[in-house]
């Protein structure tokens, strides 16, 4: 039996709740961490976890993006009297360990954090005063305390049904912050080169964690676009390689996505993005290539493959293919030829992606990718599968309407052999997303026209409401239209 002596409070951001469990598991596996989950309800923002030591706890915090902060647990209970009893006995039994934090040459600060209920500063101070039995001898220092103590109250998850008393009360010493500052550091708002479908910083960091990217790994994105997934992989020390079928995109000459921008600047590129974040050294290459055809040398193996394939809504799913048309070929030999592309069905795209990953991942390497689907026809059975890949995580992010996407994480579990792979390929036929695009545009719950009419009716009602209250309406929509017109004038 392992000695799990170190109890911690993990405080998570209540955003992408679905993803934190798989992130935790991935990071634990990546660092080889031992742990025991004490909390049962993993949707709550506070978890209690036992680690073997403070060091392992800090290792986890050094990579987690879902984590706000991690604390050493001093007391935890469901009711206030229990909480204080436990805190008192903890202080008594751990006298020696606490002495160094509570001694007179240290300084401290207590922060009160409540979830789902707001308290004034005075009420918070009153909460702190209830713990006046703590034998702290150091001085209070609100700016640069040596020790930060946190008092946490959890008042349920539903803002419409706040319970009369807190459900959980926790107290502990701050060990470290999570890595949520990276979300701001890598924000798309300030990124040099972005496109319509650039992945936001938080999700792309989560993907890099799912893929267990470590220093010196070789990471590949076969649908690289503007390289938004490569940024976070490179930030965690991966050497990144990307490919895309769109020449203009890879050369950063496609239409700008920012409303304030008319033409692309000369120095926009995926490499410039990496330079912006101080990881230009991690840039290997990007190239123009069609994923449906083999390109890479068979001996090449990647540590992880992280990708967001096009769904056919905002970016087209394409591959090079001959189109038959009745028209006469007017091309001459010396003309520049642009290969014609045709629809690349999501079904065969995922087939190719899994086959490619089985071939080119190292053993134990991970494929992390998104799969779009219509929520009503989700079924575990529809997930793409492959003989040599094991699905290790699957988290959902709702999109607009009744569509959704899932972040799938596969791990290569056995060495690739060609004949076996061919067999398993056949099993993945009833792919769900085959008609994702068609259904998205044609078979939505309400037609596009109905939706437009409903929205305009809503706007009209809002306008009348405002007029009756004597407010002057500003037409945000018209403003946006004007901006767009000015852009193309």
């Amino acid at each position: 039996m392992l000695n799990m002596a170190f109890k911690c409070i993990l405080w998570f951001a209540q955003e992408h709740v679905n993803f934190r469990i798989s992130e935790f598991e991935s990071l634990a596996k990546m660092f080889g961490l031992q742990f025991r989950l004490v909390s049962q309800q993993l949707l709550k923002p506070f978890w209690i976890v036992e680690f073997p030591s403070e060091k392992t706890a800090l290792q986890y915090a050094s990579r987690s993006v879902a984590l706000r902060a991690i604390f050493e647990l001093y007391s935890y209970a469901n009711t206030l009297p229990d909480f204080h009893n436990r805190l008192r006995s903890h202080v008594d039994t751990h006298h020696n360990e606490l002495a160094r934090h509570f001694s007179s040459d240290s300084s401290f600060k207590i922060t009160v954090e409540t979830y789902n209920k707001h308290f004034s500063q005075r009420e918070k101070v009153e909460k702190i005063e209830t713990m006046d039995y703590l034998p702290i001898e150091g001085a209070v220092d609100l700016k640069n305390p040596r020790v930060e103590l946190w008092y946490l109250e959890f008042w349920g998850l539903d803002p419409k049904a706040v319970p009369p008393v807190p459900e959980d009360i926790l107290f502990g010493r701050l060990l470290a912050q999570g890595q949520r500052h990276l979300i701001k550091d890598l924000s798309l708002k300030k990124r040099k080169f972005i496109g319509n479908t650039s992945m936001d910083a938080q999700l792309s960091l989560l993907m890099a964690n799912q893929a267990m990217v470590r220093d010196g790994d070789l990471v590949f994105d076969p649908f690289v676009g503007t390289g938004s997934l490569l940024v976070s992989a490179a930030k965690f020390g991966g050497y990144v390689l990307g490919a895309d079928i769109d020449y203009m995109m890879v050369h950063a000459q496609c239409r700008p996505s920012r409303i304030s921008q008319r033409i692309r600047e000369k120095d926009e590129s995926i490499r410039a993005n990496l330079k912006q974040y101080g990881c230009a050294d991690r840039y290997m290459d990007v190239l123009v290539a069609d994923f449906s055809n083999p390109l890479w040398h068979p001996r090449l193996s990647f540590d992880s493959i992280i990708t967001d394939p096009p769904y056919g809504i905002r970016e087209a799913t394409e591959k090079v293919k001959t189109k038959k048309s009745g028209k006469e070929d007017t091309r001459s030999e010396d003309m520049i030829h642009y290969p014609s592309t045709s629809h690349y069905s999501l079904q065969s795209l995922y087939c190719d992606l899994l086959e490619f990953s089985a071939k080119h991942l190292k053993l134990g390497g991970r494929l992390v990718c998104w799969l779009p689907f219509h929520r009503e026809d989700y079924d575990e059975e529809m997930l793409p599968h492959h003989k040599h890949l094991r699905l290790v995580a699957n988290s959902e992010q709702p999109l607009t309407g009744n569509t959704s996407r899932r972040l799938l994480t596969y791990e290569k579990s056995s060495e690739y052999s060609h004949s076996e792979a061919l067999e398993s390929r056949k099993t993945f036929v009833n792919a769900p997303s085959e008609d994702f695009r068609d259904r998205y545009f044609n078979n939505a719950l309400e037609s596009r026209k109905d939706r437009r009419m409903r929205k305009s009716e809503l706007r009209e009602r809002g306008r009348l409401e405002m007029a009756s209250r004597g407010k002057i309406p500003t037409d945000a929509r018209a403003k946006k239209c004007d901006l767009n017109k000015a852009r193309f004038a």
Partner: protein
Amino acid sequence: MKLSTYNFLTSMAIKGVKVGFPLKLTISKKELVETEFNPTFVERLLPKLDWSAVYGAAQVAELAEDIPAVQPESIADNEQLLQKLHHLLFEIDVLEGQLECPETGRIFPITDGIPNMLLNEDEV
């Protein structure tokens, strides 16, 4: 395009091509990009490389005297060679040039440092 990437590329996609490796590299414009030397990464990359193509790239980049024609048995403890490999594989950026399929002679252009491996629809 870096010369490490060059080592990974084939022209297998062309109809009828079996191996398509190594591609014939021509450099018309290159640039030196200084990057941090990471010996563990170079070491980890070694088993993924085809040595004859590494040597071939060194010849084209006029660095052939730095790289032995045959792969030495132990590279891991040869710091000097690792440095030279790092320079060859990561610091030379081919801005303009071309890659030629050894079997069909099909040319893939490299523009602004990005190789275009797209084929025409009648070639796949």
